[in-house]
Structures are given as structure tokens and as C-alpha cells.
């Protein structure tokens, strides 16, 4: 049976990990490599690492660091930030990424999504959407780490990303990000209904109950969290125990000794 994944999200800025509230007020969390080592040792389901300033400053991601991080990671590793060309994807995959996450560049150049899916397969492309709830009740997409309104409706954009070949959708609520008040379930459900792809809920997890809601009430295939794991005693393993207690299938870690 397919398991629901619990995914720590790591936001990478300059030399360390950070976490903000509503994509702002960044707090330093600590260095990247030790965090990845810990998550790998704890055998998490998957890791997502996003370079949050690569796009803002028009830089390319630091491939050498990515290779150092990937060397410590034996679970699926998704990397995002500043991907604007096929060549960036190739270099990330060579450095040890398993999947790439594309967000900002897709709005300006939707063909990039098709090109990546065609060249490297849908399974390696996580399309990331950052959304805000507008006063009229619509959810709109924002690019450049939440700073630029794209004018696109989340539902329409999610469908377009699916049609262009994305393999998964990572939907983040900017309003809930870092607040730990719970995922925006209406937003997650809207995306789950719009596409036939696995949907990863992100933004707002403050306790395990929020994760249960995202799965059982909104239909998410996976739940991502940052603040919950950075700033509280909560761990992915405990989260999975809580989900299992609610009847959600989660992965059991392999018990045999390492070869």
C-alpha cells in the first residue's frame, strides 16, 4: 500500500537554513549539512531543499554544495531555486538531486515545464505553487518567493502544470507559512480536485493533527513542514506515529541492520 509521506522542507539562504513567517521575517535555523545528516539518520521519507534567493538575485544554485548535501542523503531529495534552464536540471541531477522543484521560472516560460518533463520525465519534476487568498475568495499564484503577483488562479495554473507534464504539485499557502496555524485546507483541496497528480500540502503545519486534516480532509498525498520540525520537539517519526494512529498508512522504517 502506498504510504503518506511526511517531508521536512529546508529553506536555504546564503550559508544556512532559515525559516520565516508568511515568506518574510526570516530566522536563522542553522547550517544545512548537519540538518540533512540528522534527517537522513532518522530515515525521513523525503527531503525538499529550496534555495530561496537564487531567483531573486538571478543566481544559479551552488552545485558543489548540493553535491555535498546529496552525498549525505539516501532518501529522495528534491531541490529547487533558480532553475530556469534544462541545463540546470541536468547539473542538479548529476550533483545528486532526484527531483527538481520549479516555481518562478514556470510563469515566465511555461514551456520549461514541458521541456523538463520531456527530457527527464514527469517523475523528476515537482511543480511548486505559492498561493495567497484574495479578498474575493480566490487563490492567486505568486512568484519570486511570494513577492510578485502573477495574476493566475491556483486551480487553473495547477491544471496547466499537470497538462504540461509536472509529476507532483507542492502547494504552499503564503498566508499560513510559518504561522503553525494549520494548512489552508480549502486551498489544498482545490488543488487536489483540480489535478490527478499527487499533491504535497505545505504551509502552516503546527501539530500532527494539522497533517491528519491535510490528508484525510483535503486529500493530500504528502505533507510538508518546516517550523514544526525546526522550532518544536516534533519529529517526522512522531508525526508518522500520530498519522498511523488515525488510520493513515505511513512507512515503517527498515529494521534490519545496515549492510
Amino acid at each position: 500500500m502506498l504510504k503518506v509521506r511526511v517531508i521536512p522542507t529546508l529553506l536555504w539562504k546564503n550559508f544556512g537554513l532559515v525559516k520565516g513567517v508568511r515568506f518574510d521575517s526570516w530566522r536563522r535555523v542553522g547550517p544545512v549539512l548537519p540538518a540533512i545528516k540528522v534527517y537522513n539518520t532518522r530515515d525521513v521519507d523525503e527531503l525538499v531543499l529550496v534555495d530561496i534567493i537564487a531567483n531573486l538575485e538571478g543566481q544559479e544554485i551552488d552545485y558543489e554544495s548540493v553535491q555535498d548535501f546529496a552525498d549525505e542523503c539516501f532518501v529522495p531529495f528534491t531541490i529547487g531555486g533558480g532553475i530556469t534552464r534544462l541545463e540546470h536540471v541536468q547539473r542538479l541531477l548529476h550533483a545528486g538531486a532526484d527531483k527538481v522543484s520549479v516555481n518562478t521560472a514556470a510563469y515566465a516560460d511555461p514551456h520549461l515545464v514541458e521541456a523538463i518533463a520531456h527530457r527527464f520525465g514527469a517523475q523528476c519534476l515537482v511543480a511548486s505553487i505559492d498561493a495567497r487568498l484574495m479578498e474575493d475568495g480566490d487563490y492567486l499564484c505568486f512568484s519570486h518567493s511570494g513577492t510578485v503577483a502573477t495574476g493566475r488562479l491556483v486551480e487553473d495554473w495547477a491544471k496547466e502544470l499537470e497538462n504540461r507534464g509536472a509529476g507532483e504539485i507542492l502547494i504552499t499557502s503564503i498566508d499560513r507559512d510559518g504561522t503553525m496555524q494549520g494548512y489552508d485546507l480549502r486551498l489544498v483541496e482545490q488543488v487536489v480536485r483540480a489535478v490527478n497528480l499527487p499533491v504535497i500540502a505545505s504551509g502552516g503545519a503546527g501539530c500532527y493533527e494539522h497533517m491528519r486534516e491535510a490528508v484525510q480532509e483535503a486529500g493530500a498525498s504528502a505533507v510538508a513542514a518546516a517550523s514544526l520540525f525546526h522550532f518544536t520537539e516534533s519529529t517526522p517519526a512522531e508525526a508518522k506515529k500520530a498519522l498511523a494512529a488515525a488510520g493513515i498508512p505511513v512507512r515503517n522504517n527498515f529494521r534490519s541492520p545496515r549492510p
Partner: protein
Amino acid sequence: MKVAIIDYGMGNLGSVRRAIAEIGGSPILVEKPKQLASAERMILPGVGSFGDGISDLRRLGWADEIHRQVNELGKPLLGICLGMQLLADRGLEGGEFQGLSLIPGEVVRLDTAGCGLRIPHVGWNSITLTGSPSRLFDGIPDDTDFYFVHSYAFRAVNQADILAYTEYGIPLAAAISHRHVFGTQFHPEKSSRAGLRLLQNFIEYKAC
């Protein structure tokens, strides 16, 4: 143990290389078919589409050399994900393509195969061993979770070639083997300890 990882421009080669090193093997990323001669084991990784994959393998001379290494020299081969699918006789992704024909079968889209769930099939899924004798799953119990990410499935001609199933709406071939050719639909290099164990079994495998 020298393990050749075939670099035909497709796939998460870095992850495969790192996993082989972790279990004590000597990974070599090979970019030319003739380099396969120096290795004792071969891994065909791959993400991407069947048509692109097989045409690159043929155009760059990999297909012939892989056949020679497997059939004439008896060298064990492991195909991972798309690499497993390319072992089939034919693939039906974006047209119809002839595969490497190393394990009898064909590759079809999950919904064509009868799966009504979200596609791709992404995440950790448990396997059920069929009992077909193989060393590949030594020390790996039934119901172990492995990491899958794929939209197409391998339909094997011979049930005896299927080592393990996984369930995603319908039963899917999770691992196959035919003589000393192996394939896993899941990614052992990304399946944490269980995956490393499977790779260890592969590099320690000895043809009888």
C-alpha cells in the same frame, strides 16, 4: 567490486554512484560503451521517457555492448526504474519502441494497465515477494517499503520473472529478473537502508 553506472544522459546518476560507494562498491560512471569491459557489474539507471532512453542507448552504441556483456560474458545487470523498463521487448510511451529485449514483457502506462489512482505513482510502497527464487531480496522481508516514482509499468510475459509486486490500485511488477538480468521499478538508491541492502545483494550476486 567495480560497478559500472551507465551514463547515457538520463537519470539521477549522482544518487546511484553515492549509494554504491556507501555499500563498499567502486562505482564508475561510464560514458562510453567500451568502458563496460572493466566492470564486474552494470547498472542501467534512468529517469525520462522510454523513446528517448532507448534511442540514446542505440545511437551511442550501448545496446549492442550491453547485450554482449550480458549474453556473451554473463555479466550481471540491474536496471532501475526507466532502466528496468528498457529491459522489455517493447515500450508504449509516446509511440511504440523496441526495448533491449533482455526480459520478456512490455511497458504500458499505469492507467492503460487498469490503475485508476493518481499518476505518477509516487512515494513509499510496500512490496510482496512472489517466492521466485532470487538472492536480490536476501535479508529483506515481505512488506518492506521502497521508493517508487513512475507513470508506466512493466508487464512481464513470464510470471516466474517477477520477484516482487507492489499494489497501486492494481498489482504492479516491483522487481523482475531473468537469468542474471535484474530490474527494480522502485529506486533502491533512494530507498534508504532497504535499498542499500538490495544493492549490496546485487553486487554480491554470483551466477550459479
